[in-house]
């Protein structure tokens, strides 16, 4: 049975976007029949086997932690919402055409695995549960295995201690990984960028919550966003679309 959601025009517009979109990944990476469907089903079973204590996420305001469960049995409007976000992520990476990439919350899909199989691109993942699921999933897929993926993984300590400063020309990070209770972690992420590099932070709009709050500056995502903005050495653009994107660029010099 499909997961039931309350829906709104904010989601319905993505149904239109999905219907009017065609990329080389549309068929391969869609949620119902492609690699993503396989990945999210795998992730759903993987997480369930770890017997998660759902008291920890009882706030239930963070869909990121239910992503595998939701996407494995997806409501059409939610599917369109996630697809639109995923399409934007792939588009931004293709536009940047980076050499050294860091992903904090990778999605198992053909696009990700093609990057790993591309000898001209060095892909690094954050040592996280998302990576654990990805690493457990792709060998089960003959199509993904045939891409001969190669990649690296770094620990959060490597990011925080500055040993990877200036390493990456593209970083795709979910705000859940970048945001802490102070700006130390976000500063550490920003220091990873090479001159000319780009960092895309996903869900910086608190899944639209930041835009709906009566007094935006009293939303708990305001200060973490300001921590990104307050760096004088970087160009920071916040796009208030869907869950919110922040695109950060370090000038080439």
């Amino acid at each position, binding site marked *: 049975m499909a997961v039931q959601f309350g829906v709104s025009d904010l989601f319905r517009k993505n149904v239109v976007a999905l219907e009017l979109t065609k990329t080389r990944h549309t068929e391969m990476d869609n949620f119902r029949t492609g690699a993503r469907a396989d990945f999210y089903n795998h992730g759903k079973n993987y*997480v369930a086997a770890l017997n*998660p204590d759902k008291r920890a996420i009882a706030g239930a305001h*963070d869909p990121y*932690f239910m992503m595998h469960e939701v996407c494995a049995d997806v409501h059409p409007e939610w599917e369109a919402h996630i697809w639109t976000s995923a399409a934007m992520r792939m588009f931004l990476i293709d536009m940047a055409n980076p050499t050294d990439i860091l992903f904090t919350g990778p999605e198992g899909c053909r696009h990700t695995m093609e990057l790993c199989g591309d000898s001209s691109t060095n892909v690094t993942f954050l040592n996280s*549960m998302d990576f654990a699921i990805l690493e457990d999933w792709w060998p089960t897929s003959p199509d993904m295995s045939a891409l001969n993926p190669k*990649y690296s993984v*770094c620990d959060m300590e490597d990011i925080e201690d500055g040993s990877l400063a200036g390493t990456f020309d593209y970083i795709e990070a979910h705000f859940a990984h970048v945001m*802490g209770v102070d700006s130390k972690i976000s500063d550490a992420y920003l220091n990873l960028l090479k001159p000319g590099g780009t960092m895309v932070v996903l869900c910086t709009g608190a899944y639209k919550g930041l835009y709906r709050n009566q*007094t935006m500056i009293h939303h708990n995502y305001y200060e*973490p966003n300001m921590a990104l903005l307050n760096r004088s050495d970087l160009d920071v653009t916040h796009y208030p679309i869907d869950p919110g994107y922040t695109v950060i660029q370090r000038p080439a010099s």
Partner: protein
Amino acid sequence: MAIRTFTGSEGSIYSATNDVNWQEEQIAFVMAILGMDIDAIDTVTIDEIIETSRALFDVSILNSAIKPILVGGKVASDSGADSSVEGKNYRHASESWIAAQKVQLEEVVRRNFHWRHLAKGVM
């Protein structure tokens, strides 16, 4: 810590131990902010952390001392003496700001607690 690389034959390079260590450091950070005993990190529950946060930042319930209300076409301050004409509850700006800090602490620690639980399951 060092970067680990998969070139085709290394098997799993995810480190549940490193993942747990990082999550525990972050959980302990929030516990320290809340004035909790970080030596209890192996036994503390997420409920205890959230309850401590709610007790420390006691701004969860809207219960204003003065409640603006329109009486006879004129704005008045309802002190709550007459329960039949209750004005609007609100948060002072300072309370609202503190509430945001509370939510932020709880959001971060919920994530770290969740991730630690899953990573421990992989160990």
